[in-house]
């Protein structure tokens, strides 16, 4: 297939879809700026996550006075949770800034591709770093409540549900990471 035929085939592949495009272009969602792009939604999602993480970091300080836990574990557990949530919050805040800095109007496409890929890699690396801490915390809670059956059942059930969802998400994550490394 020579170049002209390749271009001709390519031009044919986009024909016949203009009507619905024009309808979309005239929609108030677009003209009034009501619709957010996927990039804007991603930045908003990271902003929500870091806000929640910082709030939880503050709430974790309350655990120092929680009578449910033995006095000897309250302070270390609080410190662990504060550090964990602060780490989550800082990572999400950093990702939010990186996503927001992508300027699709002025940046060359190669730079946008590079930045988008960096953001994706960083996101997956953050998950890899924080996941062992989350699993470790669940293990710690199981050990802590090992002598109290109802609490232990609750922790184990929560760990089971979390484990199932976490395993599914982990498999998706590994597929995404492999695909990213290939690109």
């Amino acid at each position, binding site marked *: 297939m020579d170049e002209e035929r390749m271009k001709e085939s390519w031009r044919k592949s986009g024909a016949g879809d203009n009507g619905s495009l024009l309808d979309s272009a*005239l929609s108030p969602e*677009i003209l009034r700026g009501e619709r957010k792009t996927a*990039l804007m939604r991603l930045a908003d999602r990271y902003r929500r996550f870091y806000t929640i993480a910082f709030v939880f970091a503050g709430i974790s300080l309350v655990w120092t006075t929680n009578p449910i836990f033995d006095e000897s574990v309250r302070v270390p557990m609080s410190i662990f949770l504060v550090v964990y949530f602060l780490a989550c919050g800082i990572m999400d805040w950093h990702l939010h800034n990186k996503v927001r800095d992508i300027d699709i109007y002025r940046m060359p*496409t190669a730079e946008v591709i590079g930045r988008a890929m960096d953001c994706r890699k960083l996101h997956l690396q953050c998950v890899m770093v924080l996941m062992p801490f989350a699993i470790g915390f669940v293990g710690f809670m199981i050990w802590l409540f090992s002598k109290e059956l109802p609490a232990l059942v609750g922790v184990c059930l929560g760990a089971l549900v979390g484990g199932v969802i976490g395993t599914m998400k982990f498999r998706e994550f590994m597929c995404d990471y492999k695909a990213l490394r290939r690109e």
Partner: protein
Amino acid sequence: MTITVDDRAWDGMGPVDWRAGWIGRLSGWVWRMLTAASGLTAERCREEARFIELVESHGETINRICRSFSYREGDFDDLRQDALVNIWRGLQSFRNESELRTWLYRVTLNTCVSTYRKRPKGEFVDVMSMGNVLPDRGDGMDDSEWLRTLVGELPEIDRAIIVMWLEDLSYDEIADVMGMKRNTVATRIRRTKDKLRTIIEKENI
């Protein structure tokens, strides 16, 4: 004959009683606001007309670019909507810093490459590195769909470059949009073109 002028500031309406002056100022202000609003409305109509004209003349291009970066029908609709949002927002502040066509390609491509979409489950086929393994050409798939499938399997940078080449942009325009040197663009186009041509010819034997 002596003409005396009132001491108070001349407000364009002559020396008048203070009540009439106040009403005059208020009506002047209302008039200015209405003029500004109708100016804004007229400006807005012009922008919308410009946007619609752009979509009408380059709609197929936008469709082709968004299709080549989507793996599912849902992805395609989302990408198209996002591209339109970005084009509309950017057009209002576009001041001819570059050619409109080049700007449109940059915005549409940047919209497509800046969002992550998951590939459907299954083997990832990198067109540039595969040997005898070809993506699956479904029954009844015509040449244009097959070409689009192959382009969709390219790494993102090569895909963006080859899409612009297929859209008849010059090497200089492609280099400008990509932010690469002309020679780099030429090398990548030659490599990708040769690979695509080899695959298509193998399929057609």
